[in-house]
């Protein structure tokens, strides 16, 4: 961000801490349907683990973890996962996001609801993570960055 000398203590500390925050983010996403949390909170935790590396070590090292040009396609992919699940349920004869109508063979209605909510939360988490990273990249690089 600015031209200051990097501190190895901060770099090592954030490199130690970032994977654990990411694992906790995945835990929050995958337990979102029966405990507090969900797609938004888990996605924000994933974004926090990415932003920690970005703010500590600069964009060159952070691009090894998550390339900044991948942010917009992944955000669009998350929205496609969300609305695709809803629209598939709508095409199969239910309402929008009616999980019981999803065409997954061999599952009962309760299991279909379980997996449907999990798929949706994965999409939400992906979009929230990439959009928050995109906001940070835009704020750092200035107005000209697309």
């Amino acid at each position, binding site marked *: 961000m600015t031209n200051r000398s990097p501190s190895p203590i901060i770099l090592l500390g954030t490199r130690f801490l970032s994977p654990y925050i990411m694992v906790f983010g995945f835990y929050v996403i995958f337990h979102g349907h029966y405990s*507090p949390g969900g797609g938004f909170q888990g996605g924000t935790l994933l974004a926090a683990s990415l932003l920690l590396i970005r703010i500590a070590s600069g964009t060159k090292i952070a691009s090894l973890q998550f390339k900044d040009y991948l942010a917009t396609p992944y955000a669009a992919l998350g929205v496609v996962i969300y609305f695709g699940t809803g629209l598939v349920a709508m095409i199969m004869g239910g309402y929008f996001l009616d999980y019981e109508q999803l065409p997954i063979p061999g599952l009962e209605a309760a299991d279909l609801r379980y997996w449907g909510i999990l798929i949706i939360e994965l999409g939400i988490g992906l979009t929230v993570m990439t959009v928050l990273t995109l906001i940070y990249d835009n704020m750092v690089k200035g107005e000209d960055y697309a």
Partner: protein
Amino acid sequence: MYWELELILFIFLLITAIIALESKDLLVAAVMLTMFSFLMALLFTTMGAVDVGFTEAVVGAGVTGILLVVAIYQTTYKTED
């Protein structure tokens, strides 16, 4: 039942809010706002709203602090008023 704990949390909440308003260094204000969000998350949790408290802890104390620090780096450290 938890009123002593809540009283201590409210006192610290007032202290962090007043420091964030009155300080001349904007980095101090950003860190104090982060602490304000964390105390607010603890208060939400003691009131029984676990999901709201979790969201407040993650968003307010995590991402908003980073974005405020980036905004301060892009502009200026000192307030003018």
